[in-house]
């Protein structure tokens, strides 16, 4: 129990970020029209690609002769970049496609 309390105390700012971000996430997208469901999902998908920073730190801290860890880290950075770059580009393409449509077709919803 005291371990947990200590942990919370030592990482208090982290816990504040977590709690406030939860409410923020709910608040920010609560009014989304159904036509934007898929692009929003895709955009959020690109944002969680920020995990790539973790991958960069993980491989960057690895000893230069630790080949198994280097290869795993290399793979992690590649798939993380795929998530980030691919995610943003594909979202942009989706929204580009939306722009050409007339607003009357907003009933199509998420026929993904």
């Amino acid at each position, binding site marked *: 129990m005291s371990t947990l309390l200590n942990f919370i105390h030592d990482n208090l700012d982290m816990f504040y970020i977590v709690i406030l*971000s939860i409410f923020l996430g709910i608040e920010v997208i609560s009014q989304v029209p159904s036509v*934007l469901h898929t692009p929003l999902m895709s955009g959020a998908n690109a944002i969680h690609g920020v995990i790539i920073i*973790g991958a*960069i730190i993980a491989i960057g801290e690895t000893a230069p002769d630790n080949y198994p860890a280097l290869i795993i880290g290399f793979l992690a950075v590649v798939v993380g970049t795929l*998530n980030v770059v691919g995610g943003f*580009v594909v979202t942009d393409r989706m929204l580009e496609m939306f722009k050409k449509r007339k607003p009357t077709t907003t009933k199509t919803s998420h026929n993904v």
Partner: protein
Amino acid sequence: MYNLEASILSVCYLTGSVAFITGLKMLAHPDTARRGNQVAAGGMLIAIIATLVLYRSGGTHLHNYVWIAAALAIGAVIGTTAARKVQMTAMPELVSIFNGMGGLCAALISVIEFEHMAQASPVLHSLIIIAGLVIGSVSFSGSMVAYGKLSGKVKDHTFRGQHSFNLIVLALVLFGIVYLLCRNPGMPGSFVFYTLLALSVSYGVFFVLPIGGADMPVVISLLNACTGVATACGGFLYQNPVMLTGGILVGSAGMILTIIMCKAMNRSLTNVLVGSFGG
């Protein structure tokens, strides 16, 4: 000098976090959606470059820059090509793949950090690493099955007692987590850790397999939220505020989006997830 670099890094992370929040907010409105995506991408770019240039652990810069640069280049080229070439109708499949890649990334980070982890690490430190592994790999394999279903490569698959079977796999996963957290320093850990990895990957498959193909958008949105949580675990692990903000933001927004999408189909989330078990 050291303090200056650390301060600039913090400001860059702050900028990144604000860009993610603003971007997500703009993405939810038709007029600003495209600009919102660009804002989020800009924030991501700042955060990544700042990490590459300014990040220091224990006073030393990151190393293995050749590996990092090669990996970034390969990922960027493949990602851009795939996203540009894909047919409009196949975009959701691609989103599912990219989501799976994010989950895989989280799982791989946990594998590296587990190898680095000292025997005497605090329990909660291990818990974060293991949570990243389990959530990341479930999200990875689940997204791959969702991709297969959307593209018609994988058919809906149910068998008798599938519900109980899934619960057993889930129970085994939980048992593995508890074992790893409670084991004494002398007890074997690596074997259980990699078994846990395999179990989580198979749970992702069994979890998505029975769900109907038409419900895949909801499932992808749910797995998207999962990867967000896995990212947040990474944020805790590295005490990195931008990963934490981004991850939790996607986690909660993704969860709400999942529920909104269910409502748009006049169904409940439970109905989507276990509805197929009846028949």
